């Protein structure tokens, strides 16, 4: 209670122009939180374009960012994540904190030229990350 009293006494004067939603956003969605990022590559960069005819560009996307302490529903993370956090903070810091990883994927269709000159259309599972989670 004393703390609250103090903070009232010393509450920082919020600049009038700063609107409330912006102010709250920094707590709701901190800058570098765990989220999906794009990475567009063309198969010619990998020198695979002599056998991959389509698609020309492939965006596998990836997950990057910090996992806040209480991840809760926003990441669809299991309760285990919070347990792992507590272990890391309270019991044993050699246990890694939860990391930001893909949780869902979408498939990719590929048109390739095989070694014998035949042409194959194939659909591959789990080739594009579509959602991140902290685990």
């Amino acid at each position, binding site marked *: 209670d004393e703390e609250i009293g103090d903070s009232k006494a010393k509450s920082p004067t919020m600049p009038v122009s700063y609107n409330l939603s912006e102010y709250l956003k920094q707590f709701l969605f901190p800058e570098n939180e765990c989220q999906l990022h794009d990475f567009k590559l063309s198969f010619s960069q*990998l*020198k*695979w374009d*002599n*056998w*991959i*005819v*389509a*698609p020309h*560009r*492939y*965006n596998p996307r990836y997950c990057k960012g910090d996992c806040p302490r209480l991840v809760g529903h926003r990441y669809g993370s299991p309760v285990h994540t919070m347990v792992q956090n507590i272990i890391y903070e309270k019991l044993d810091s050699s246990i890694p904190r939860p990391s930001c990883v893909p949780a869902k994927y*979408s*498939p*990719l*269709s*590929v*048109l390739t*030229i*095989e*070694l*014998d*000159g*035949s*042409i*194959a*259309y*194939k*659909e*591959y*599972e*789990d*080739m*594009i990350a579509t959602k991140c989670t902290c685990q």
Partner: protein
Amino acid sequence: SPTLEDEAGTLTSGEASVEAEPLPWEQPLDRENSPGLPPPLLKVLTNRHLPGAPRLQPDSRSLRYMKRLYKAYATKEGIPKSDRSHLYNTVRLFTPCAQHQQPSWGQVTGVLQSMDLLFNLDRITDHEYLLKSVLLYSLKNPVSFSSTPKCMCHLVVKEPECSSPFCFGSPRSFTFNLQFELRKNHKWIEIDVTTLLQPLVASNKRNIHIALNFTCLKNQQNPVQDELFDMARLMAPSLLVYLNDTSAQAYHRWNSLRYKRRHQLSPDQRDLFFYHKEEELTQDRKFSRRRR
């Protein structure tokens, strides 16, 4: 499960920054040592990974057909279109590795073509099950007919000569007569050979020898058909096979068990199912062409 990247084996692995442990495909090829890569993929890796492994180039017509199929099945980003309700997740196009043709020409009915074709289907893996197969004739220019000529196709499939001393009896052959119509303004003629090929592929036959000839009722009034016959006579058909790849890294639209239970399809219903699908696809194409 291994993804495209594993299967491909980065051709630039020489430049890859990995110094510590050798890449999976750089280890000895015996099965015990390959960490986590199932043997068939390792085979693919070494094939693809061998520098300068010769790669035969398909002909432009086949490539054009498969690019159209790709556009029909996937978005620009390469994501399979969800409105496709077909079971197959793999389509392979083979061109004959050997062909002999005896163009003959009847007076009354134009014998369009008789050919001896040999297809090598080694690229079909053990996990891929054949669902549908067509012989694909491509015509240089879309030919329009006054009426749709009726054609008859006579196919003989000879099982490969058996070299081992334990084979019994002479190689079997299957004879099929197929009726079909030459569609107007079509650049491709498809002859469904599913019932003919399914038993052979299912019993792991990978060298398919097909002798075929088809005749179309000649139409005196319409000389353009001669042009069609001349053009088609010159080109050997490709073999298109629609497969369901059951391996872990392939995309399965739905859980096949759930699907089978819900849509118990008997074999002939399945053909009907595919026939309607093809019809639908053709309608889509016509509609999209008209719209364009």
